[in-house]
């Protein structure tokens, strides 16, 4: 490609790119801005674009009323289920790749589980959980998120493990390592990038879940997504609570993504190529 990178073309491109970026960023800014507005500013007409001072009363209300526990609940359920799904899914992927366990059928059956829309199995799962007394519990949500993420983890890790040269494992076994040691000391370190990238997405899926949390939580284990939608009332809508809770719920995502950025970009493109 002939690149004329000098002068006005460069700056024109920059101006367009900046404009597009602002359009995508503005709604996020608006959400954050509302969470820091005073009640008068939230309900000001015409709308105020820049809060006069940082008013943290929306957040203080959430902490005082104990609503922030919803963010904690999301962290616990998404976090533990991610660890479990990664462990179970990676082991399965290793077996499928190295031993061709179940041939193509097993891996296709596993990935097909991911296709089913949550709402379709929501009611049977609800009934199951009622009889097992798991409604409104950590264990219930963690089990569910784990089960729903295992297919994704298996599928993704399959691709990463395929890339590890089998000779490495063979020589490790000649050196007298047991199979478990090969897994722990050769395969896991080699697949590190893939493990991180997959874990980030697994965490995001569990974190963003709304349907299951809506159906399976009542009062004890309410996740943040359910809490946010709960603030939308038919009579009064609590804008400041909605925005503050949303920001608290989005913040962990930003932190995760920012720290894992290099793994994610690779993970996304690889996952797409490998499918």
């Amino acid at each position, binding site marked *: *490609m002939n690149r004329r*990178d000098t002068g006005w073309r*460069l700056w024109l*491109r*920059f101006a367009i*790119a900046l404009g597009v*970026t602002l359009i*995508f*960023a503005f*709604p*996020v800014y*608006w*959400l954050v801005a509302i969470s820091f507005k005073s009640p008068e500013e939230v309900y*000001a007409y015409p709308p105020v*674009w820049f809060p006069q001072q940082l008013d943290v009363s929306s957040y203080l209300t959430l902490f005082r009323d104990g609503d922030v526990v919803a963010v904690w609940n999301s962290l616990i359920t998404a976090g533990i289920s991610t660890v479990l799904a990664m*462990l*179970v899914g990676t*082991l*399965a992927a290793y*077996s499928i790749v*190295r*031993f061709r*366990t179940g041939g193509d059928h097993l891996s296709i059956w596993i990935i097909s*589980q991911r*296709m089913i*829309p*949550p*709402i*379709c*199995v929501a009611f*049977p799962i609800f*009934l*199951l959980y009622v009889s097992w007394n798991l409604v409104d519990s950590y264990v219930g949500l963690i*089990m569910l998120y784990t*089960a729903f993420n*295992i*297919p994704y983890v298996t599928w993704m890790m399959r691709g990463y493990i395929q890339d590890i040269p089998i000779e490495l494992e063979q020589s490790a*076994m*000649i050196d007298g390592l047991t*199979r478990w040691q090969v897994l722990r000391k050769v395969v896991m370190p080699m697949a590190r990038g893939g493990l991180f990238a997959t874990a980030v997405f697994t965490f*995001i899926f569990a974190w963003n879940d*709304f*349907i299951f949390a809506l*159906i399976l939580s009542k009062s004890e284990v309410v996740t943040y*997504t359910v809490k*946010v*939608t709960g603030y*939308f009332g038919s009579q009064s809508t609590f804008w400041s609570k909605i925005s503050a809770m*949303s920001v608290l*719920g*989005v913040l962990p*995502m*930003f932190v995760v*993504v920012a720290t894992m950025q290099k793994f994610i*970009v690779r993970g*996304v*493109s690889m996952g*797409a*190529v490998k*499918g």
Partner: protein
Amino acid sequence: MLKTLLDNDRTFRYLLVAPAVFFILLIGLYPFIKLIIASFQNISLFDDIRSFQGLLNYERLLSDDRLWHSIVRTLLFTAVALPIELVLGYLLAVLFLEKIPFKAALISIILLPTIISPIVAGATWRLMLDQRFGPVNQIISWLAGTDVKLLWTVSASLVWPAILIAEVWQWTPFMFLLLYAALSNVDREQLEAAQIDGASWWMTFRRIVLPAIMPVMFIAVLIRALDLFRVFDLVWTMTQGGPGTATETLSIYAYQMAFREFEISYSAAIAFLVIVLLTVFVVAALRRVEVSR
């Protein structure tokens, strides 16, 4: 010989897949079987009768206008949103392939919408589109020169555009990221050769660029199509399917039937229908990939 050493440990290999299979059987297959059984029964939450009634629920599917309307709505929404996201994502990717100052920073900011929960995206756009306190109507008023108060999430003619804006805003960056990665891998020398040979933009695109990005594009479209087909969170936050049933998508209808009207057996029949439709669609789509590979 070494190969067989690695390949031949039966207990070990089944031990490794056992937990995954156990979890999926428990939470995937068991509910699925339960669902199929329920769809032939007559269960409601209020009386504990579980008599089988044959295909009655499935017959009801055929004449349920509300169901078919929700399916058509969902398909239409997918058919409109997906091409917009694809084209906008592609244009953005092309733009960012060029040299741009602060490129990495701009890209991370553009990706923000995709990271946040659909629930929060819905909430954010309800704030943005609020008739009185939202900035969108304010900007439109500036441009129009008069006070405009569009009832975005309330009036029947504006709810779909409102949801579409939120959807496109959230998922265009996803398309952009995938296509950007794919386009970065297109062979530069081939492009230059085509340019020297005087190939038109369209020819270059069709013969070189498109084949190179096809696999990624296909998967991206498939992922988004499946997500759009079961769209729930975003629509639920923005309109709850209203006004009336104007934005009732398939997932929302299924939810209403199961958890608001407690038509358990009938909702099971709906769920089974959806799973069958999706399976047919995905199998057909994946066949295509196999063939094209």
